[in-house]
């Protein structure tokens, strides 16, 4: 810059010469606007140039003179002899200062102040118009990364201000890592397209150390010709070490996991946007934008290093299993404690037992919750399957999933994979028709297979729904008769007919295909689901499609049960299916003795006496209890000697030797150390139905 100082001084001297002439002329023609402008311009130019060399003394002084002259120019102040005199003196003072422009001597300072004082007397007060405009380059330096979301909608005519959007994008990118989404929906078709018009809306996610103002400064020139929204999404941590430590951090610092483990766990996280899009709740561009945000936020967190991380950890499932096991034992022990404490009339013991009960329930719920996994990952695995199958079969199929966030016990989900594969295969192979057949039937060319998961009480219901041809009742029935599964004269309900396809050795596909195999599928599925404590329900409308519903317990390990007694034995009825507990009065017992019916909420309901079922031939007790249950075979009453109460219990498998045992799903150890069997109501009621229809 030094080489220009001389240029500046020379020019300033020239300008001051001109100024003197102008001022003298102005004295004779005080209304001459051009002269006033010229005078103002001289002061303005000197100020501007002096500022470039940081000649502060000159800048500050000329600024005051300039603003006075600006008032004159604006008509707020009239040209008077005093004004001209003062301005001339100012000119002389500037001339003096130019001899040593970078120095501010006490003499020149006091002279400046003196003249400014004179000007102030003249104008009342010198208005300081120093409205600082936003600077084009920021000065503040942030040392941590922040994430900004920037919505930028340029005005349609923005190009007419010579704005180069590419330069703008480049500038943003230079600030940090920038993800750009261009919304192109407003671009018209070619015939209506004006190349001089800006149609695109922009959204940016910027990870940068820059401050909010610095980010806004990128748009400083276009602010007036666009809509702009800059939001700080994640603020950079300025004070390191403050705030609580994340679980991941702690685990790393203890050497329990490596940072890689943590990153792995982070990656296992499923983006919410995907679920929402799968559910069709939000549009694609919404999801894209949200995904961008999520991605950049995650990146940012990784960048921040010590900052927030998703606090998930990966744990071996055996560890969880053994935790759940221990919790199960604890629940059992707690039940024993409650039982013992009830025998002693000791308030402090009772209080303690209650506390332990509350805590163990809480612990149980938490431990079970650890094993809960959303089913969405399983669902998404089927996309490939559907794609490959539809290619093989020459069908066009869309897979829709809903409720992927529904959580199920991990062990249930693991065992669910094969049955689901089978059911989907069946839907695609037998259900969905070829594109040609679909078009002829007046349907859309593409078939749809939907996987839907939802909670239903203590169960999760998973539906495999297709919009294919539906099950053919007649064909199923004739096939079943052919195979001897159904008697010639037997009349079956719709549901019973559909259930036939779950029988071993049943397959209705005209030809055996690679896909569906030889009819060994559905019965395996049925067994698998039953072994999970679940049940299958099939509905189908000819020509419209079929729905196969799998009802599964939330968890396998713990059951909420109703403890009942028959003779000396105790049994557990799953509480989820219990609707009511009644007393079976002697009169009622006598009233419908042969038919074994009782009246429940206005309708007649059959009952089963467990005592008879388990061949306990001793005398009936005077008073019996009725447990009304909802089973897949309808509402049934289960008659027991006594209802003891509800009971949380850990299910234990009976072991290999008892694997063919009907009517019982498992066993549990009671508080007093004795054992109780868990009843399979569906089997029991099915048996009763068979017996009653067989006339036993």
């Amino acid at each position, binding site marked *: *810059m030094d*080489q*220009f100082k001389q*240029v*500046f001084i020379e*020019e*300033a001297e020239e300008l001051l010469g001109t100024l003197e002439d102008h001022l003298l002329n102005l004295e004779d023609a005080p209304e001459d606007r051009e002269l006033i*402008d*010229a005078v*103002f*311009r001289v002061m*303005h*130019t000197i*100020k*501007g*140039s002096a*500022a*470039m*060399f*940081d000649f502060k003394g000159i*800048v500050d002084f000329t*600024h005051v003179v*300039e*603003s006075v002259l600006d008032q004159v120019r604006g008509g707020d102040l009239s040209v008077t002899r005093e004004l001209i005199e003062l301005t001339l003196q100012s000119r002389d003072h500037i001339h003096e200062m130019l001899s040593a422009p970078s120095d501010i001597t006490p003499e020149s300072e006091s002279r400046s102040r003196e003249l400014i004082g004179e000007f102030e007397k003249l104008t009342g007060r010198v208005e300081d*118009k*120093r*409205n*600082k*405009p936003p*600077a*084009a*380059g920021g000065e503040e330096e942030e040392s941590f990364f922040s994430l900004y979301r920037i919505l930028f909608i340029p005005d349609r005519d923005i*190009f*007419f*201000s*010579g*704005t*180069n959007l*590419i*330069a*703008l994008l*480049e*500038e943003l990118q230079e600030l940090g890592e920038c993800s750009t989404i261009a919304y192109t929906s407003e671009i018209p078709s070619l015939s209506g397209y004006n190349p*001089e018009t800006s149609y695109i809306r922009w959204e940016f996610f910027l990870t940068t150390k820059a401050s909010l103002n610095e980010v806004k400064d*990128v748009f*400083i*020139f276009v602010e*007036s*010709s666009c809509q702009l929204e800059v939001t700080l999404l994640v603020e950079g941590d300025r004070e390191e070490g403050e705030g609580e430590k994340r679980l991941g951090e702690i685990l790393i610092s203890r050497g329990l996991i490596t940072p890689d483990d943590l990153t792995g766990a982070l990656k296992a996280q499923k983006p919410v946007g995907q679920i929402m899009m799968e559910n069709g709740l939000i549009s694609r561009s919404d999801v894209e934008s949200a995904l961008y945000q999520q991605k950049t936020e995650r990146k940012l967190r990784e960048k921040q290093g010590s900052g927030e991380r998703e606090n998930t950890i990966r744990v071996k499932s055996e560890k969880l299993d053994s935790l759940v096991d221990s919790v199960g034992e604890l629940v059992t022990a707690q039940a024993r404690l409650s039982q013992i404490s009830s025998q002693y009339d000791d308030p402090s013991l009772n209080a303690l037992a209650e506390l332990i009960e509350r805590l163990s329930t809480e612990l149980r719920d938490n431990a079970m919750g650890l094993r809960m996994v959303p089913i969405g990952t399983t669902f998404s695995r089927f996309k490939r399957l559907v794609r490959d199958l539809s290619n093989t079969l020459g069908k066009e199929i869309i897979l829709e999933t809903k409720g992927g966030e529904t959580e199920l016990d991990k062990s249930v989900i693991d065992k669910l994979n094969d049955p689901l594969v089978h059911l989907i295969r069946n839907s695609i192979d037998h259900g969905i028709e070829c594109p040609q057949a679909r078009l002829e039937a007046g349907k859309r060319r593409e078939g749809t297979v939907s996987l839907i998961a939802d909670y239903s009480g203590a169960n999760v219901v998973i539906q495999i729904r297709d919009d294919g041809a539906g099950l053919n009742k007649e064909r199923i029935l004739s096939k079943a008769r052919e195979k001897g599964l159904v008697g010639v004269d037997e009349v079956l309900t719709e549901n019973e007919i559909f259930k036939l396809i779950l029988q071993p050795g049943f397959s209705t596909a005209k030809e055996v295909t690679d896909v569906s195999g030889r009819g060994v599928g559905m019965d395996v599925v049925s067994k698998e689901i039953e072994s999970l404590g679940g049940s299958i329900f099939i509905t189908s409308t000819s020509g419209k499609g079929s729905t196969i519903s799998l009802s599964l317990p939330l968890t396998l390990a713990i059951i909420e049960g109703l403890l009942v007694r028959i003779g000396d034995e105790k049994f557990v009825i799953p509480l989820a299916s219990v609707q009511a507990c009644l007393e079976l009065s002697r009169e009622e017992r006598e009233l419908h003795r042969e038919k074994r019916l009782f009246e429940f909420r206005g309708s007649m309901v059959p009952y089963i006496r467990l005592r008879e079922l388990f061949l306990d031939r001793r005398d009936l007790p005077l008073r019996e209890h009725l447990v009304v249950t909802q089973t897949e075979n309808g509402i049934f009453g289960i008659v027991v000697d006594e209802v003891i109460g509800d009971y949380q219990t850990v299910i234990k498998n009976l072991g290999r030797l008892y694997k063919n045992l009907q009517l019982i799903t498992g066993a549990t150890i009671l508080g007093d150390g004795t054992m109780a069997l868990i009843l399979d109501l569906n089997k029991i009621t099915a048996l009763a139905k068979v017996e009653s229809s067989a006339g036993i």
Partner: protein
Amino acid sequence: MKQILIVDDSRTVRDSLKFFLREGGYEVLEGSDGVEALDVLKTARPNLIITDVNMPNMDGLTLLENVRNSPEHKFTPVLVLTTESQQSIMERGKSLGATGWIVKPFDSQKVLAVIKKVLGG
């Protein structure tokens, strides 16, 4: 090489701008007021115009209007030289189609940063 037209009545400003711009790798054209600038624009097609506002004969904003109304230059970016006290000029400049502004006093770094902002890298 990108060409920049600088329009200012102050030789100090022109000379120092010219120096910065040449160091920044730009070719420089000059005019000392709006009339001279329009003369230059009859034959030249600069990539950018930097103009002062307050100038004799034709001020910068009138020059800007002329540029925006000419078919050859209507999309040419125009930067207006202003000072801190001239907020209203910036606003008027923007409404007349200025691309941006350079606030005086300026140094080499600032000028080149603003030009890059407008012309790209």
